[in-house]
């Protein structure tokens, strides 16, 4: 049984920090048994999820709200878990309808693709909201299940 790996970080609501988080996800994933190509996909899923939070969660936030995002990463023999928590408005990308991706792009729309990839890459994607407290996105990737489903 391999050792469990954990990493917690808290970043400002600033897109410049996306690369820092991707690096950290890769660091954790590469220490796990996850194949290298799959590690890239998990870091992509986290990047897309975090960018969504950064672009939506704090748009209407009053000044007293702390504009930070907490990320918890954990990996063991069987899986990698990601929790992304923010303290802004509830935004559930899980409620977005499936889109025709190519048509979506041709119409010049942004977004939508990231949510599609999150669902495709990760084995579990769950959103929870605690009104007035925080929003949390929880995602799991099972190590022995490649991301070629669908």
């Amino acid at each position, binding site marked *: 049984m391999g050792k469990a790996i954990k990493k917690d970080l808290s970043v400002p609501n600033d*897109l410049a920090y996306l*690369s820092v988080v991707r690096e950290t996800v890769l660091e954790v994933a590469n220490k796990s048994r996850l194949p290298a190509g799959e590690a890239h996909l998990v*870091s992509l899923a986290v990047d897309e999820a975090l960018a969504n939070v950064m672009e939506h969660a704090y748009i209407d936030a009053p000044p007293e709200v702390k504009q930070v995002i907490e990320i918890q990463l954990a990996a063991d023999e069987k899986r990698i878990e990601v929790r992304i928590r923010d303290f802004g408005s509830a935004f559930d990308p899980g409620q977005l309808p499936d889109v025709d991706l190519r048509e979506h792009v041709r119409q010049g729309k942004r977004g939508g*693709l*990231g949510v599609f*990839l999150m669902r495709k890459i990760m084995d579990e994607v769950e959103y929870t909201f605690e009104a007035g407290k925080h929003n949390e996105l929880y995602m799991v990737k099972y190590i022995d299940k490649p991301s070629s489903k669908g």
Partner: protein
Amino acid sequence: MAIEFRIKVIKSTSGVMATKNEIVGYVDASTLTQFEQVLGKLVQKGAKNIILDCSKLEYINSTGLGLFLKYTDELRKIGGRLAVTQLPQATQKVVQMLGFDRDLKLLPDDAAALKWFGDIQTTTTKSK
């Protein structure tokens, strides 16, 4: 630096010309606008055959790949073409997941891209 673009015009021995844009760094939500502006300017200035050299591309998100598709369409409309070269393996998998592999032209290098542009020009001239 998060992202940098090295742009130059290249020419094959048979005279086919193309604008090569080497992307150095990453395309994520923080650099996406810069990437889109650079592509837009190239097209505006009249570039028709564009090569996006991804040999130094560290990361690209889904919206960035969406721009590859958008400009593939835009250039086609004006009789041009977009070739994507040396796209990392892991990103090629993402392209497949999005179903963009049917529309994007992924090629190994500049020579293959110039040959492709040349073949298209020949076919178009012959059919006229």
